[in-house]
């Protein structure tokens, strides 16, 4: 059984790391890759992801259908776990083939923290779906909102790319050229996964 003091310590570590990945990602990821203390703080990211899936299920299904709600949540979570595991297996296999050195544990921790921009984008989009439901109009305010929304989306996307690069750099000790090679192979994989998720009506934008 986890003690309260440990829980508080882990949650503080999580907050510090989460802020670090936003403000100082290079140093934070480098520290995370060599840290020998309790690693369980990264599990808070999964709690955030689960919170999002519960929230998304409520928005999509509504609270009137508890059975459908739980089915929807389970499908989202299973698809997320499948996508997450696929990415980890893909990175570790290609990384080792290219001479990378590192452990699955470090890779998992670093890739988990890279889910923060993804989760934030999905939360943001879901909230905006409630408060400012689409479609946008072509009036001035509609155009202004579209530019602001695109700015936020692109910013989070670039943050994700930075964390993706740092994950491969520090978890597998790869250089830019090898990361570029992996990226050339990972893009078709992501396109494939996205298509499958879209066709199965699970995610319109892949949760990776």
């Amino acid at each position, binding site marked *: 059984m986890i003690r309260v003091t440990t829980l508080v310590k882990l949650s503080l570590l999580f907050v510090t790391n989460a802020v670090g990945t936003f403000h100082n990602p290079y140093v934070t990821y480098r520290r995370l890759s060599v840290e020998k203390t309790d690693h369980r703080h990264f599990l808070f990211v999964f709690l955030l992801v689960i919170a999002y899936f519960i929230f998304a299920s409520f928005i999509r299904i509504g609270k009137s259908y508890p059975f459908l709600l739980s089915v929807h949540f389970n499908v989202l979570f299973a698809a997320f776990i499948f996508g997450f595991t696929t990415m980890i297996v893909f990175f570790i296999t290609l990384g080792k083939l290219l001479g990378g050195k590192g452990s699955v544990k470090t890779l998992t921790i670093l890739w988990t923290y890279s889910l923060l921009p993804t989760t934030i984008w999905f939360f943001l989009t*879901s909230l905006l779906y409630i408060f400012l439901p689409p479609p946008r109009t072509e009036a001035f305010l509609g155009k202004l909102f579209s530019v602001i929304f695109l700015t936020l989306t692109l910013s989070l996307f670039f943050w994700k790319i*930075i964390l993706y690069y740092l994950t491969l750099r520090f978890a597998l000790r790869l250089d830019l050229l090898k990361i570029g090679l992996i990226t050339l192979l990972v893009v078709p994989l992501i396109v494939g996964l996205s298509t499958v998720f879209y066709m199965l009506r699970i995610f319109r934008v892949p949760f990776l």
Partner: protein
Amino acid sequence: MKNDRVYELLVAKMQEMTVVPPQTLGPLTFAYKRIVPYLKFAPWRSTVTFSFLLSVFLYFLLGSTVVKIASLLQFGF
């Protein structure tokens, strides 16, 4: 004992800093070293600025298609 603790921390920090060798890109290394600091420390400043400029550029390039893209993305969760 206090000095030993400081020394241990310094050694740990030095080991952390040398966990990966410096990145070189041949003739492009100079340009790489100029750009990367903007992405290493407080990258949100450069990414938000760049994203805003890119969004405005897309608006002037694509016109009302940008509104459609935003609407489509809003359905994407």
